[in-house]
């Protein structure tokens, strides 16, 4: 622990050089623009910048500064259109729109943006602290994992992501995850080298690559949806007092700490992103508030809870990514791809192979949050005009960069075609209640699940006993059982509530 903090303070100073600062400023600005412009997301921003950094052969440190800068900026940037135009730039900014826009209509738009900026900064710093405190502990634990635990961890990751992201029913989230795991079996199998589901297609022998899938899953449905129901930006509001009220911030210290904890907690759950952190925190703030009736009408408490949580989620999402090799959110999935491109093997051995890496990531996150704080204030008045770019111009540009993003990794047009086809399929999946995040996490964790299941069975001579006798395996089995039974319990409860309200599914139709 002490060593981690020593490395962290060393890295804080070591990162400061003019080139890194220019990269950080550019990346955070790009991130804020990506977060602010509806249809562009943190995941997409990281995906596109990963292409650029990989092709430029930048050093790992600079690559991470660029990608983390975009990540932090994009998660924060979603609050600008949410507050000023009632159009959340990202799903993570949707909860902020509920309180931010009414505040803007009351003439407090500048104050709301400033408060969101300060609390987003606070949330990110909270995430940094969580990273520094929890990552070493989790690494020690993860080093004890054997094949059975690694399989169960991957299985739990897909399962919990499916449970928490499915809007209709958890089973659909699990099916989406299973589809991802199935896609991961395409290509040469990890133990015997046997070709599976390749249909004699050369491009499939190496397996399905995550980057075209991520771009397809997160860019194409956005483009289709944005063009199907284009939103018209209203008259740009005038931002007057761009400063938070210190009294409000002081009164919300506990609210912010609770939101930070929730953000870190949600972030550390595989594949569950900043949007769920923001909504969960907002909902909790409303439930514990003495004045719940003020929510939805411009409550600073609600805005602070959502903005703190979604930025705290960044640090939370990096913890399982770096210590277990399991990404905590969709942007973290993309970061995993970028790390693999740079020959960084995430997981429990990372702390031994590169002891300085986790503290370095924490230091980059802290510098990115400071940059975000400064740029957040500077760009608030500009962003309101940028937000008025018509979607008819913005979306084809997103498509243009997505095509390059999919192509540039392998110079393969097959990947471009796959991205577009998969993106259209992802749109229909989402329309019918199947979330795409579990699919992507299934694709990423699928090889880990398969290889470790087979290795565990080989080691035990085909016996399932290690899955039930090893204490760590048992913990995972209990977590899996609890997660599945909780879903059935909540679904039954929801069904009973809807029957009580007389609005069950069948009567709705």
């Amino acid at each position, binding site marked *: 622990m002490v060593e981690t903090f020593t490395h962290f303070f060393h890295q804080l100073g070591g990162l400061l050089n003019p080139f890194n600062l220019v990269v950080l400023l550019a990346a955070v600005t790009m991130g804020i623009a990506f977060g602010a412009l509806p249809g562009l997301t943190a995941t997409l921003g990281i995906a596109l910048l990963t292409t650029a950094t990989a092709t430029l052969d930048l050093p790992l440190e600079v690559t991470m500064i660029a990608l983390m800068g975009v990540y932090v900026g994009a998660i924060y940037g979603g609050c600008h259109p949410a507050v000023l135009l009632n159009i959340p730039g990202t799903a993570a900014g949707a909860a902020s729109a509920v309180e931010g826009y009414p505040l803007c209509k009351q003439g407090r738009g500048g104050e709301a943006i400033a408060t969101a900026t300060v609390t987003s900064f606070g949330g990110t710093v909270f995430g940094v602290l969580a990273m520094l405190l929890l990552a070493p502990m989790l690494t020690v634990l993860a080093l004890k994992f054997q094949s059975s635990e690694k399989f169960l961890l991957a299985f739990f990751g897909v399962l919990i992501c499916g449970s928490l992201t499915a809007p209709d029913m958890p089973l659909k989230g699990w099916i989406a995850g*299973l589809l991802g795991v199935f896609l991961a079996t395409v290509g040469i199998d990890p133990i015997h080298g046997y070709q599976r589901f390749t249909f004699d297609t050369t491009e499939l022998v190496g397996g399905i690559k995550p980057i075209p899938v991520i771009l397809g899953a997160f860019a194409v449905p956005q483009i289709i949806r944005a063009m199907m129901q284009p939103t018209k930006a209203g008259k740009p509001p005038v931002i007057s007092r761009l400063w938070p009220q210190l009294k409000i911030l002081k009164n919300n210290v506990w609210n912010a700490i609770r939101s930070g904890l929730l953000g870190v907690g949600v972030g550390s759950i595989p594949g569950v992103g900043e949007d769920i952190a923001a909504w969960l925190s907002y909902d909790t703030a409303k439930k514990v508030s003495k004045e719940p009736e003020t929510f939805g009408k411009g409550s600073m408490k609600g805005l602070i809870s959502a903005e703190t949580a979604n930025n705290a989620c960044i640090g939370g999402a990096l913890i399982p990514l770096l210590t277990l090799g399991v990404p905590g959110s969709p942007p973290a999935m993309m970061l995993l791809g970028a790390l693999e491109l740079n020959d960084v093997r995430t997981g429990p051995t990372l702390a031994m192979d590169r002891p300085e890496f986790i503290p370095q990531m924490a230091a980059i996150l802290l510098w990115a949050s400071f940059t975000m704080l400064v740029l957040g204030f500077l760009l608030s008045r500009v962003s309101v005009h940028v937000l008025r770019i018509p979607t008819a111009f913005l979306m084809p540009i997103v498509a243009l960069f997505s095509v390059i993003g999919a192509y540039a990794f392998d110079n393969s047009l097959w990947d*471009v*075609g796959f991205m577009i086809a998969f993106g259209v399929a992802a749109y229909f999946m989402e329309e019918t209640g199947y979330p795409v995040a579990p699919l992507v996490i299934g694709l990423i964790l699928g090889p880990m699940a398969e290889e470790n299941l087979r290795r565990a069975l080989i080691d035990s001579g085909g016996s399932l006993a290690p899955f039930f006798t090893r204490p760590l395996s048992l913990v995972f089995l209990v977590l899996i059982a609890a997660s599945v039974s909780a879903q059935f319990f909540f679904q039954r409860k929801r069904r009973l509530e809807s029957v009580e309200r007389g609005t069950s599914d069948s009567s709705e139709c």
Partner: protein
Amino acid sequence: MWQGRALRRADCVCGLGLVLLGGAVLNAARKMPMGGSYGGVDNPWYASPAAFPLLIGGLFVLSGFAIFLNGARSGALRGLFGALARAIGRLGQPAQRRGIIVVALLAGYYVLIRYHWIPGYSGENYIASSTVFLSVFALTFYRPQGRRPGWKLAIAIIAGAFLLSWGVASLFSGPLRVPLP
């Protein structure tokens, strides 16, 4: 996301699709080596390349049935074919039509960059393809004050599309060293 009975009808169709997919996966897995040794490595069934696909295929079949039953229980099977016909009829509605146009434009963009489509020109066609894609996309959807852009604005859009495509191509082919198609 779709709502109500439309969603439950989709469950029936997706459930059947999953059962079929699961069946296909199981069938393919059955043909994979299971037993003896493969590639010089012991290949008991639980360690064979077929083990995981068998598990996944089985889960697809089970979950497909569960989703199908969920839809069928809510009465979504009644009038399913009529609903499908009505859904096809709805494709002409403005929002759906716009969605189809977007997908067609994306597919068209892929075809343009995939095939060298300018006769007698075998060099880089990325700039031309992207200019066409960006211009057609913007001119299809951009309606200032609810009207089609005039010819001056159209030329400006095409010029902007060319400049952007050229700029991106120069950036990627130059400093970023990505040879574009």
